[in-house]
């Protein structure tokens, strides 16, 4: 499997390219929009945000996506929410991937008691409903910030990838080049980092990309259920919650965050699937 071939296949996958385009747009929106917008995501605009009939104004020139229930600009809050979602999802994924890879490689490579103990930990962890576990930890922490959500999601999201990485490590550790490295007297850390890790990187990358989408959903669910980041910080899940009771009068307050969550999850899944196809050895020309 060559890296160039994989990259080429990603570039040839229309869905992966579309996903990457969406992600790029999302990142630009999250970073740049709050800078260029004339609205502040924290401040209600009682002068312009209130419709003549009462309630928030709808989409228009002043408020492109309308105002929220207390008359803040929906679009700038969506952009700010994107920052939170992307920060939490990407950093939690990074954390869970590192932990998952370390546990998976250690378990697969060393085997024996190490494997037994680590895999039982994984079994126990997987036996808990993920969201329930995250909510319990979130509730125990009291006031939650993006950092606590990130740590909670990161430290509970590695279980599945540890399993997969372990399986892949078991395949690789018996390969001739690993046996040869050991015979040549290479140190274990060097073997793990130099030979095992590059060969299990494919699944880790694919799982990580798909995990970002899951983390976005998990963060939104936590906020939706009220166990996430406290207001007034805008999060997509909380915006969804705010919008649902008001859907008859101000449907944009529900549709905007729903579309953001849907769009970003689809984008990361498209890229993840494109990467999986590209990195899968069974794909024609897949190496």
């Amino acid at each position, binding site marked *: 499997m060559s890296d160039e071939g994989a990259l080429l296949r990603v570039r040839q996958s229309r869905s992966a390219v579309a996903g990457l385009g969406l992600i790029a747009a999302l990142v630009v929106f999250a970073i740049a929009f709050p800078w260029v917008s004339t609205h502040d995501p924290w401040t209600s605009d009682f002068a312009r945000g209130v419709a003549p009939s009462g309630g928030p104004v709808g989409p228009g020139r002043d408020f492109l996506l309308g105002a929220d229930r*207390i008359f803040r600009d929906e679009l700038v809050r969506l952009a700010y929410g994107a920052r939170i979602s992307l920060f939490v999802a990407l950093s939690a994924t990074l954390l869970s991937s590192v932990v998952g890879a370390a546990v998976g490689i250690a378990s697969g490579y060393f085997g024996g008691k190490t494997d037994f103990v680590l895999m039982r930990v994984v079994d126990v962890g997987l036996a808990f409903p993920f969201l329930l576990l995250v909510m319990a930890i979130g509730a125990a922490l009291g006031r939650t910030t993006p950092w606590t959500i990130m740590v909670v999601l990161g430290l509970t999201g590695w279980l599945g990838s540890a399993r997969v990485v372990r399986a892949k490590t078991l395949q690789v550790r018996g390969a001739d080049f690993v046996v040869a490295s050991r015979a040549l007297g290479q140190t274990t850390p060097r073997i793990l980092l130099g030979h095992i890790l590059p060969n299990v990187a494919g699944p880790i990358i694919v799982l990580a990309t798909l995990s970002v989408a899951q983390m976005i959903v998990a963060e939104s669910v936590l906020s939706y259920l009220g166990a996430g980041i406290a*207001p*007034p910080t805008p999060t997509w899940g909380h915006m969804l919650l705010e919008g649902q009771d008001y*859907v008859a009068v101000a*449907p944009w307050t529900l549709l905007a965050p729903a579309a953001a969550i849907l769009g970003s999850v689809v984008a990361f899944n498209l890229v993840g699937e494109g990467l999986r196809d590209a990195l899968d050895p069974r794909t024609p020309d897949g190496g």
Partner: protein
Amino acid sequence: MRRLAPLVAGALVACGTPFAPPIAAEHPTDATPRRGGTLHLASFADIRALDPAVASDDLAATPIEALFAGLVDYDASAQIVPDLARRFEVSPDGLVYRFFLREGVRFHDGSELLAADVKRSIERALHPTTPNPAASLYDTIAGFEAFTGGKAEHLDGVAVEGRYVVAIRLKETDARFLSVLALHPLRPVCPSAGDRYDDAWVPCGAGPYRLPPGGWDRGRSLLLTRHEGYFRPGLPHLDALQWTFSMNRAAELYAFEDGDLDLTHDLGDADLQALRADPRWAPFLSPEPDRTIDGEVMNTEIPPFDRVEVRRAVAAAIDREHYRAYKPESLSPASQALPPAVPGYDPHFDGQRYDYAAALAHMAKAGYPYDPATGQGGYPGVIPYYLVRQGSTEYTAQILQQELAKIGLRLELHLVSWPTFLSLAYTRHAVAMASPGWAMDYPDPSDFFEALFSSKAIRGEQSTNTAFFKDPHLDDLIERARHELDPGRRMALFTEANHVVCDEAPWAFTVTQRFEDVAQPYVRGFRPHPVWTFQTADTWLDRPPRARREALGLLWGGRGVPDRWLASVRGGRGW
């Protein structure tokens, strides 16, 4: 994406479309009440108790009023009228209240109501083993302390003076005694209740409806059926009242539109707005009186709110119109301690009002000058603010946070569950600021001033004085008002108390909330009650048989499903 477009457009259209049409009365011009039928009601909440001696939740008021009649009661205009008592008289010194019972009144179990039952019921409700949260309302009855302290077998102040005569003697004059006696806790209960509270007792009283065996499925539903021996001839008109509890608000509204529920009270602002704008529905909305007061409660024992100038700054910094804008259909700005439904409310009194310059001046006087141009100064600490997750305060707290930031007070919002909030907001030294609100128990200013601002109401836990506010002058005014029997002089004392509270600002009063009921047109003789939420005693149904059949359409598709589908196809509302 193209295929998604019609769906999205359909959803957008459906969101803004009107309600299903009202179901008309069968004989709209005939005002003669018809007997029979079941009135269906629902709530998103649940009731905890139906025993008048221990119930305290707002939702239980209507069923308890239906089950238990009292010596006196509130009529439709909140005036106190004799009910089980044929008449009553008050001694010239205001210390003895003598009640002459109607003869031949039957409890639900068939036994006759006698003066001894009244005494037994009062002692049962005030017995030290009864978890009665409202017992202290009756502390002016002679012998109260000895009886509730377990030192006396009987309550001295309640005397049986004949088969149908009972007298209640007070140890001191109490101008609100009849007002609190008309509430539910002391209402006569059947002999089966005995003289001690027992959670297993099946509620049984002398009210117009009775609880049939198995009628209360806790957490789910409650069925009350007509008490055939009710002392008012011909009443009630209805066969039964049926409540469904823990129902999602949206589901409740759908069920109401479909005619599965006959009236509803849990209307969100958006629904209210849509109903008011709909000429078919507008005539069937009935506003309840404004009985609640909301405010930002500042714990006067915790910095920075131990300084009166900071509290005054908060009261002046809040633009009440900003709160109202969040729910314009049901909120009104508040500027004093009493809501409009309570006697003593003065529509011309602006005790607290938005004045930004004054707010900054108060902050400077408090020693925390703040410069809005630079954002420098203000109170250096962060003030934790506790609020209930998914309640109205989630929004008003964010507005408050913005308003107070403009005078240099920084709030940090802590969302907690309802039980956590209850355990924190009513506990001493626990919370610097919160907004627990207060709803009227009885239409008298003492219900607000004694509970919220009297130092007597301060407790370590479950304190109703959540600002933990102590002011000797105010205490004196409240105490004098309690004993003042002249209505004019009494109201003058409360007017002064209102001024003191607005100036000392343990609360920054923000809004009053008005609830509104909507009933199907075939529900006749219904109106909101100023104290008991719903008035069901003379309600009757004039429902056309066709509507009944339509309601039965749910049998083949779940609650109202076929109608809703048809309505959405025809352009009706469907979220």
